[in-house]
């Protein structure tokens, strides 16, 4: 069965491009160009996956996710934006992954399927951002578990950053693809739940090395 997808992007050309890239493989049930539209379209069409631009008129990607607290839809951030803060913010708002707009059509279809199944999607860039965010050693007195990546999670993230696909990672670490997926989901969860507010400001400090 085809995934039901809503496209949210304020540029008509981008939406048209994405539509032609993936239109054959998924069922595009709605489109929106700003935050308010997105919220009402997603409410009325109840898609499986929302492709969400990070920058939108009327409040950006995180505002769309925040406006739909009860939705069953999964969000996949799709952006040209490279500012780490913006990307981390949309993930922390609840997006299940981040891919850049120069991704190929097949990869995008694969990412949509993965997000629809409840898994996490890491582009190499997002993996790099996350490694960077967790590289600062700031002990969290409340819940240290949330602020540290396990050795295995770091290993998976490094391979993602090096451009490995999930199945290549599974083969290399001799674990199953399911295990790789669960590591990726665990990292995403930590990123979303970690209450270190330093996360949003890490980039600036990281450059002071």
């Amino acid at each position: 069965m085809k995934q039901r997808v809503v496209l949210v992007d304020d540029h008509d050309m981008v939406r048209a491009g994405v539509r032609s890239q993936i239109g054959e493989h998924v069922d595009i049930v709605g489109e929106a160009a700003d935050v308010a539209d997105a919220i009402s379209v997603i409410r009325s069409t109840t898609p499986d996956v929302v492709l969400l631009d990070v920058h939108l008129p009327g409040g950006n990607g995180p505002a769309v996710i925040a406006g739909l607290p009860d939705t069953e839809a999964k969000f996949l951030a799709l952006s040209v934006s490279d500012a780490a803060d913006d990307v981390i913010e949309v993930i922390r708002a609840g997006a299940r992954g981040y891919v850049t707009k120069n991704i190929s059509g097949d990869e995008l279809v694969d990412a949509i399927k993965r997000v629809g199944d409840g898994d996490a999607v890491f582009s190499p860039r997002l993996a790099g951002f996350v490694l960077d965010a967790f590289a600062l050693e700031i002990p969290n007195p409340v819940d240290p578990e949330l602020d540290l990546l396990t050795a295995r999670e770091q290993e998976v993230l490094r391979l993602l950053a090096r451009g490995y696909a999930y199945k290549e990672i599974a083969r290399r670490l001799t674990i199953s693809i399911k295990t790789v997926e669960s590591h990726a989901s665990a990292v995403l969860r930590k990123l979303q739940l970690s209450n270190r507010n330093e996360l949003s400001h890490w980039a600036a400090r990281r450059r002071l090395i």
Partner: protein
Amino acid sequence: MTNVTQSTGAEPRPRPADASLWSMPHLDKDDRWLGGVASALAVEVGVDATVTRAAFVILGLTGYGVVLYLALWLWFTLQRPSEVHQPLPKAIDPTRRHIGVLAVTGGLFTLFVQLPTGVSSLGSVMSLAVLLSGVVMIWSRGAVDWEASDEIRRFIGGALLVTVGLIALFLFQFGVSAVSAAILVALVGLIAALGTIFGPWLWRAGAALGDERRLRIRADERAAVAAHLHDSVLQTLTLIQHNAGDATATVSLARRQERELREWLYSSGSTSSAPEFLRGAIAGIVNQVEEMHRIPIEVVVVGDCAVDDAVLALLKAAREAMVNAARHSGADRIDVYAEVEAGTLTLFVRDTGSGFDQSAVPADRRGVADSIRGRVERAGGSVAIASEPGEGTEVELQVPYSEQPSPGVSTAEISTTAGGDS
């Protein structure tokens, strides 16, 4: 009057989030009856503006409150932060402005009557009233608009009242007999009157000048952005139009421009884009290789460090690894990942192309591999090459780096010394 009731019934406004403890109260251009001093103080103290306004009125009855108000107004205004993006203030509601001006005038009146050399006679009091009402007329003007005829009429009327009031005041205070002394005092009075009349106008003109300066700064910023876009984006777009038939050229031009623009947007002013630091140095190399070999290179860098001799050796080796991947692998994309961690810099260059059997490497390619290996190992680092036929190739380079930043090597050096093989 609806505006008035709305604002007095409002909750105390919170202090601006970024205001530190000792920051200057900020005159609120939108919530004010006269100069906004009361509402600024209210924000600072954390009470409703009604309270501070009432306090000023009560103090104003003694006369000294007015002096205090004017002094604070002047002080706050001089301390005004020079924000470039300050929005233009809303005009004050005319009713409020008149009430405010009347309050000040009444206070001044009381003050003068109380002075030791007091204004005693009824005539003096009345001439003072005439004088002050002239001042009110001039000061309660709205925005400077010398075109409007009723503005000018009001101004002339106000000036007449001030002059008549001054002359009458002198006559009643000092009498006709003291004319010689009065001439001297009248001169001083004239200057004071001129100051009173033209003061507001000069003040406004000065403020307008400041606004103009802010606008000019904004325009300069715009010009700088436009210049940058012209030199980079527009040039690239022109090149793309000329190369429309050549897909790979178009893609590589677009990618290069994308990277440059991104670098400019997100790291302007930070050290990370400088070639003396790892991020900038890698970006420089990747741009060269992409341009020369027309292949997209995906770069992820975690952390940053200064480029010292060991890092430079690694970067030269990395450049060769990228060039090799671009020329021999047949892959449609190269992934580069660099990580700075606890005194070690690790860099991976990976492609998913043809790969090769390492035990059966032809002599010329072994030479390249050795030159990569030799460079890094001489710098105290290590190299690992993983490749299988059909499985792509990954080159892992690792060097220790010194924690003390000692920049001073540029990527120009990398490209000239490592560029021989292309």
